């Protein structure tokens, strides 16, 4: 079953076509990588998938538990509700709120009480808040962040901010997780640890994962399939071994001369 299917997706900003005719399909439970040189349009694909940009043309459909959703014109919060969560390449935490609040906000759509209960602090509010705090701390525990739950997000070191972004995405209860360069700026040890965590997450939370990453050690190690973009177009798709040997990919990354040598 295809979890996510993108057909002939195009996005132009005025005269610039950032993504052109891109098609992609991900099956439930897969761990797929999306790679390409800087400016290839990978993050734009993520922004189209999460409703931050509206596609110029093409179709995006997401299917989960037998429910099919067309994502093209949906607002980001609706896409989040449908079951897609993401992290951001340039960390976008709620900087002046606590670590715990960052996670609790992501549980917003699953908090079962309305405006009235919020204003009057009816019992439903207390019950749900208690549950949300427990679940948030459980999630933070997985990433060794629960001890910092009362710190402001902006005061966390860089690596922990990246991890908090993943926790926050998981807190929305997604079935498809989009990770935008999760290992950016991490050292070798941290990257290796993160690689393990991502693989474990997929099994533990029954996730489908699509990740953008420049760190090839991470991509080649855990991705089952890899898509390669260059100048807004999809230039290759296949298993890690195939991608490594694909002349178009080598050309895109290293230039014409090396590819011919």
């Amino acid at each position: 079953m295809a979890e996510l299917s993108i057909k002939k997706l195009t996005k132009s900003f005025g005269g610039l076509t950032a993504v052109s005719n891109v098609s992609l399909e991900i099956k439930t439970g897969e761990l797929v990588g999306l790679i390409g040189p800087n400016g290839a349009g990978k993050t734009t694909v993520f922004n189209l998938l999460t409703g931050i940009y509206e596609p110029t043309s093409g179709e995006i459909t997401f299917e989960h538990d037998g429910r099919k959703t067309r994502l093209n014109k949906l607002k980001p919060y609706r896409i989040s509700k449908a079951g897609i969560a993401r992290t951001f390449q340039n960390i976008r935490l709620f900087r002046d709120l606590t670590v715990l609040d960052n996670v609790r906000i992501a549980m917003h759509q699953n908090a079962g009480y309305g405006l009235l209960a919020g204003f009057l602090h009816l019992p439903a509010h207390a019950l749900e808040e208690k549950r949300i705090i427990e679940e948030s701390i459980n999630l933070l525990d997985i990433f060794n962040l629960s001890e910092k739950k009362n710190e402001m997000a902006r005061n966390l070191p860089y690596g922990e901010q990246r991890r908090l972004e993943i926790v926050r995405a998981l807190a929305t209860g997604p079935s498809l997780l989009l990770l935008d360069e999760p290992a950016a700026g991490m050292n070798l040890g941290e990257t290796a640890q993160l690689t393990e965590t991502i693989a474990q997450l997929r099994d533990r939370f029954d996730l489908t994962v699509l990740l953008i990453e420049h760190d090839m050690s991470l991509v080649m190690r855990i991705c089952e399939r890899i898509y390669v973009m260059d100048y807004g177009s999809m230039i290759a798709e296949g298993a890690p071994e195939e991608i490594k040997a694909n002349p178009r990919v080598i050309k895109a990354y290293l230039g014409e001369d090396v590819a011919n040598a």
Partner: protein
Amino acid sequence: MSVKELVKKPVLRKGIGLGAVFIIVQLLLMTGVMNDYYFATLVTICINIILASSLNLITGFTGQLSLGHAGFMSIGAYTCAIFMMNVPPGWGVGAFLAGVLLGAVAAGVVGLLVGLPTLRLRGDYLAIATLGLSEIIRIIMVNLDITNGAAGLSGVPRFVNWIWLFVFTAGVVLLIANFLNSKHGRACKAIREDEIAADTMGVNTTRYKVIAFIVGAFSAGIAGALYASYFYVIKPDLFGFLKSVDILVIVVLGGLGSLSGSILAAILLAVMSSLLQSFAEIRMVLYAVMLVAIMIFRPQGLMGSKEISLALLKKFGKNLTFKKKRV
């Protein structure tokens, strides 16, 4: 801890605090220590607390800069005044309560109508749109017959006493505090921090911006109605741009994103203003100097984005004793 305990504890603490404030002021009034002049200052303080808390919800917590808060206050004041002056005298205090409610609802409805289109604007643009809105409201009040034009309405029945003042002020502040301390309040703060991230994490950002705006407008309507029913006279100029700025000054001074800061600043400014009465000529100059001084030494406002809580007071107390020991 059982659910019951969880619900009861903070409520109990708040209740004791509020009850104490109510009883102390009531005693001061009964013994005559608090004369009419002081009481008028108290009314101003309470109205300013309502105005500042509700503007803080919009600007400090949700991050939407609004320069038109006096406009909503004006709608509340005029609606309540016109209603009270046109119902039979036999209605008594019922006329007042219905008037306050009507004024608040009218302001809330205008907030909704204006919020839907303007909240798509960000930052400076929203500020200018809300500024324009309050000017439009002022000009409408100047030109309508029912509002008696620039001369305004006088002889509004006075029903505001300490009990009603307390009920409405405490009520508004408590409801806003509860709202902020729920998933709805967190959604508002998320919008302030990063609108795109909030949207991506499942927060319907338009909805929450509009809700914050409506709750803010509704509360400002209550403040306006209380004003009308205490000060007899209302006229359009009272609710001009400068009034909006006054409210914003309280919010910024107290700290954007601190409800207790807004309350503290509302009290402090009123006290400052009365203390300066004796320096009639240079009063406004001194007032401005004080504001500048506070902004230089506390640019984040008196409270920053913190709230006054037992934990904070304990920490403060510890610091004090620590310093004493070192001396």
